[in-house]
């Protein structure tokens, strides 16, 4: 078994992807599709939660996408949740099961899951932020005994935008997982919470001292969630975030993902709060 990164680095050019195949795709919302991708036989992705790959459609381009499946459930295959927002992602949405795509990676720093052992785990996901967090959540669930409480807060724009409904149902049923969902704009059928993600904090009682928070969402969400967590006594070093930047090379060269001195593709995309709290460009 060779890891994909070794394969990528073994290429004559680090910018050349490895061909892989879409084995399953599922429409989750009008904008998001879930792709299950299979690497050529003999290769494993060998990723850690929070890392990303460069996804290629030859002739269209390449874009960085977070891996949304857990390493503990990889099996030579992995999943990417892709929102159609740009040229590459729209092209990927047009593909069908069986189509060949290119993959480079995995790249970037992951969530330091070993440092989370023994802690209460709080996950705060806004919109598509649930995708990268899902890879961590499932890993935590698969090693459930290693952690304290598991609390998942998820905010979507509308009920139709809710991602991973099957996973949410499983998490909701699990007795040792506390799941709270909210939507900004309800529809007629919605009976759940309505309001911003911060409104969910009223639903839970928690002790900040022993808690690790992993937050992924749109830039605006970070500010509000951070002030809530800090006010609740979470240690700054126990707050972890993922930053979405346009990594064009993923190898620390192209410059596009740089926030001040940090290349997000190298030092990130996962950062602890103290590492970025003084960086305007992290939250601007």
């Amino acid at each position: 078994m060779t890891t994909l990164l070794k394969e990528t680095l073994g290429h004559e050019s680090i910018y050349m992807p490895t061909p892989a195949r879409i084995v399953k795709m599922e429409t989750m919302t009008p904008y998001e599709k879930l792709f299950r991708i299979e690497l050529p036989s003999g290769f494993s992705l060998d990723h850690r939660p929070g890392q990303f790959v460069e996804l290629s459609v030859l002739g269209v381009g390449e874009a960085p996408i977070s891996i949304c499946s857990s390493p503990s459930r990889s099996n030579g295959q992995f999943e990417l949740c892709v929102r159609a927002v740009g040229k590459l992602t729209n092209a990927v949405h047009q593909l069908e099961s069986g189509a060949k795509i290119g993959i480079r990676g995995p790249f970037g720093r992951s969530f330091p899951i070993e440092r989370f052992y023994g802690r209460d785990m709080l996950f705060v996901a806004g919109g598509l932020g649930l995708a990268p967090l899902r890879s961590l959540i499932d890993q935590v669930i698969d090693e459930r005994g290693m952690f304290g409480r598991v609390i998942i807060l998820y905010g979507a724009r509308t009920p139709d935008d809710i991602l991973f409904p099957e996973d949410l149902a499983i998490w909701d049923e699990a007795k040792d997982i506390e799941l709270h969902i909210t939507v900004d704009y309800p529809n007629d059928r919605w009976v759940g919470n309505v309001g911003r993600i911060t409104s969910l904090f009223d639903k839970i009682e928690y002790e900040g001292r022993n808690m690790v928070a992993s937050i992924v969402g749109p830039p605006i969400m970070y500010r509000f969630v951070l002030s809530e967590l800090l006010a609740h006594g979470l240690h700054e070093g126990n707050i972890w975030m993922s930053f979405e930047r346009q990594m064009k090379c993923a190898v620390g060269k192209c410059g596009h993902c740089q926030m001040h001195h940090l290349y997000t593709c190298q030092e990130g995309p996962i950062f602890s709060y103290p590492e970025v709290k003084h960086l305007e460009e992290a939250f601007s």
Partner: protein
Amino acid sequence: MNSIKIMPKGALRTWIERLQSRDFKVVGPKALHGQFVFEEIVDPQELVIDYPMSAMPPKKYLLPPREVLFSFNTRTMEMEAEITAEPTVIIGVHTCDMHAINLLDTVQSTGFADQHYRARRDATYLVSIECLKPCNAQCFCKDMETFSVPEDHDLHFTDLGDVYSIHIGSEKGEELLRGSTNVWTPTEADLKRLNEVMAAKWPEFEFRLECDLHELPEVLGATQHSPLWDELGEICLSCGACTQVCPTCYCFDVTDEVDLTLENGQRVRTWDSCQLEKFALVAGNHNFRSGVAARQRHRFTRKVKYQYEAFGTMGCVGCGRCGTACHVDITCIKTYNRLYEEYQAKTAEPVAADRANGHREANGAVTAAVVTKETVSEGTK
């Protein structure tokens, strides 16, 4: 490797022809539209080795403005890397540009090594030349400690009037001189002349920055909220000319190009610029460096703080090209000096405030002292 050879100026032409006959592509500064540009030298007479600043650095021979990374077939998914490197001798590289190439070497070999750059760099031979005078009013190589050749070089020429002294810095350099008959070991007189020429060089260069190079990272760190950034943001046109001419800029964009059958294509990288509005744009139309002021700040801070801290080498070599290329006269010298002034005022503030307090408390005494002094001086008259 530390030996010096002497070559009469008249032999330069035959040496270049010899390199060409050995299948080296020879590149050097040529005059074009009143400026100097690095181009392939076909006829050695085109070479202007004694030139002021070139419009563009020789960087393009290591990182071309447009470069195919690999070619592909969209149907079969076959891909082929395009690593192209032809043995190239770049003649007449100024020492600031040598330092810039040193930085590029470090960057492109650190972490994930870029094979495209490495292959081209390995096939490139650098013949640098000692600058005996500053290029123009914008360059500040003395401040940036780049007005001498870095240790890592191949051949380094110094103009001694009717001959060149050639410092051989590497085996690659030796290789270039191999078989040259018109090159000799320096005589006592040659070495004396070299020393005289060098001694005459130093007074020609003046400091143009108010601060020391090693203070710049701290100065930039302390002035991230300077009003200067907004002032630059007001006038900067976001044209990216500064980064186009910079010898150490290496940011790039990647695009796919396909033929009319949509079957065969190439993934291409092209120079990009952090000064362009869309450089930091991400999905969902979020731009985390949308302001012109923030982009200017990023450029200057990256050059003399981030890169210095990451690689131990300044990202600015003091060549002055960005200031020369700028349409609205944003220059390194003015920027760094203004920031240093603000930095000094800022760090001096607590001291000045203390002194002011001291003055207020001891006001009477101070006045008395002045009076006394005046009285004394009047008395002595």
